[in-house]
């Protein structure tokens, strides 16, 4: 008979984490609801548009449920969320969920590409830096890291856009029409992560190269490169995961700005549009979605920890 005590520790760990994530998502929905209830001005009058009569405004306010006490509105909001009902978008005149869902793939592609670039560029840069410790390549990479951590992602995006799209005409400047369009926005978004991962990889590699097992491997006749790729790289994956886990918030928040800059058809762009049109049902829904994404990514990172590092399985 499978009982809770009998299930595998990983599954039980995962189950507890999922429950915790659900509780947090619920709490965030609460915070966001009360935050958006602070919006000044008459929501119904704005949505009804200029030139509408008082009777029309009153009717709209009644149909939106804005006359009910705040706690009643909150209860309706939360029970709605549990049923997958994100309220009514006054701009789309319907349930906003399909419009949000249709924009998720673009945001997923952007953030996944940014993580991919981080791994592809950040880890090798850190390894090279460590191999040439205190020599010219190390210096060049270390200076780039400090510079990249100070540069705002939207300015980097603007420079890339100006150079590669406007001046050279090599890459598209907006939208998500072809895979090549992914390059500039994901690079602008990834720059900060690349710098952090490169710095972390450099530190860990220098540490690892001084350890006994490296000396043993050297004495067996393995080349430095082979040691780096076979042994050290494995130990670098954990801190890289940590950086990505810690920077999930940056990744999601940064995607909003980058999507705006590149007119990228993702949910961040939708959020800023919704705020501009005072469509707060959509803005709230997207905010909650971002928090869910944050929780999911962190769950995946924790799971990967356990999978990569057998030592953590016991814990």
């Amino acid at each position, binding site marked *: 008979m499978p009982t809770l005590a009998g299930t595998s520790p990983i599954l039980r760990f995962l189950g507890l984490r999922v429950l915790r994530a659900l509780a947090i998502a619920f709490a965030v929905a609460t915070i966001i609801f009360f935050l958006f209830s602070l919006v000044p001005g008459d929501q119904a009058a704005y949505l009804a548009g200029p030139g509408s009569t008082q009777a029309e405004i009153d009717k709209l306010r009644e149909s939106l449920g804005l006359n009910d006490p705040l706690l009643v509105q909150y209860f309706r909001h939360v029970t709605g969320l549990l049923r997958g009902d994100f309220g009514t978008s006054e701009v789309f005149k319907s349930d906003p969920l399909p419009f949000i869902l249709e924009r998720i793939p673009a945001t997923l592609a952007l953030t996944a590409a940014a993580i991919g670039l981080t791994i592809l560029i950040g880890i090798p840069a850190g390894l090279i830096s460590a191999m040439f410790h205190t020599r010219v390549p190390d210096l060049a990479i270390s200076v780039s890291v400090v510079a990249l951590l*100070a540069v705002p992602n939207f*300015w980097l995006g603007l420079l890339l856009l100006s150079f590669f799209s406007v001046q050279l005409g090599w890459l598209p400047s907006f939208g998500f029409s072809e895979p090549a369009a992914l390059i500039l926005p994901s690079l602008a978004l990834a720059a900060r992560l690349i710098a952090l991962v490169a710095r972390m990889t450099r530190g860990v590699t220098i540490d690892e190269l001084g350890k006994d097992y490296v000396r043993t491997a050297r004495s067996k006749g393995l080349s430095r490169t082979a040691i780096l790729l076979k042994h050290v790289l494995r130990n670098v994956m954990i801190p890289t995961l940590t950086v990505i886990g810690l920077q999930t*918030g*940056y990744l999601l928040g940064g995607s*909003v700005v980058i999507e705006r*800059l590149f007119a990228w058809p993702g949910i961040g762009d939708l959020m800023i549009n919704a705020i501009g049109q005072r469509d707060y049902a959509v803005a709230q829904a997207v905010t909650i979605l971002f928090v869910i994404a944050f929780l999911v990514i962190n769950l995946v990172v924790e799971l990967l920890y356990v999978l990569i590092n057998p030592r953590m399985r016991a814990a």
Partner: protein
Amino acid sequence: MITPVPAVASGVRRGAFVARWLRQNVYLVAGAFILLSFLFAALFGEQIAPYGADRQNLLKALEGPSSAHWLGTDPLGRDLLSRVVIGTRHTLSVALISVGLSCFLGVLLGLISGFMHGPLATVVDAVVDVALTIPNMILAISIAAVMGAGLTGLIMAISISFTPPIARIVRGRVMEIREEDFIAAARTIGVRSWRILLRHVLPNASTVIVIEASLQAGQAVLTATALGFLGLGVQPPTPEWGTLLGSGREYLHVAPFMVVAPGLAISLMVLGFNLLGDGLRDWLDPRVGN
């Protein structure tokens, strides 16, 4: 045997000591120099800038860099260098005020949840935990949206969204200090809790707070200018750097030089705060130096 420390007697000795300190704290010195330059520009922008921030000259609209206008002009013929120099005060004051506020709030919440026991500490801790799962930028955008575009909304957005991480860091440090012997000693002789907090815990946590504040100030500059870029921050015609980049984006095809100066200024200011933070950490907290 204890070696007696030689007294710093001669001026040469003192000079050597200062030189060594400067060499050991290059980051700190560089960061402080950059930020002091910005502070100067923020205070005396009108005096340094070659033109007024709002002086228009439509005959010279969208001109590239020249000897008269080093960084070129915008669509209304305003001098871009002057606008960036005079705009320094907006970004710098937003960063300093909001980090000041978020440190005040964060320290308060961190002290409560790290030092006290009971329902209040639990509630504060839970709220901070939940707030930390809302990506910083998303929270700032939501708050700015609710407050409406403008200076007050911008400062509220940044200070509230930066509070949870500071509260978390202060809490960790306070929980360490709480276990120290001198706290137990103070309790034994009957010192009241709030006095222990203010006289013993807070001073010992101050290093962590100062370092964190400096690093957060750099992030605050990035968030403030990003909100300005999105149109949720300080509104035109105020020459705020993020807003300048936002308007520069629309002219990228005809006047790419418009986006150079504001972006460079933002990067330099962030670099200044980052260097200051790293330098302070190396100087004040040798345990965690790289």
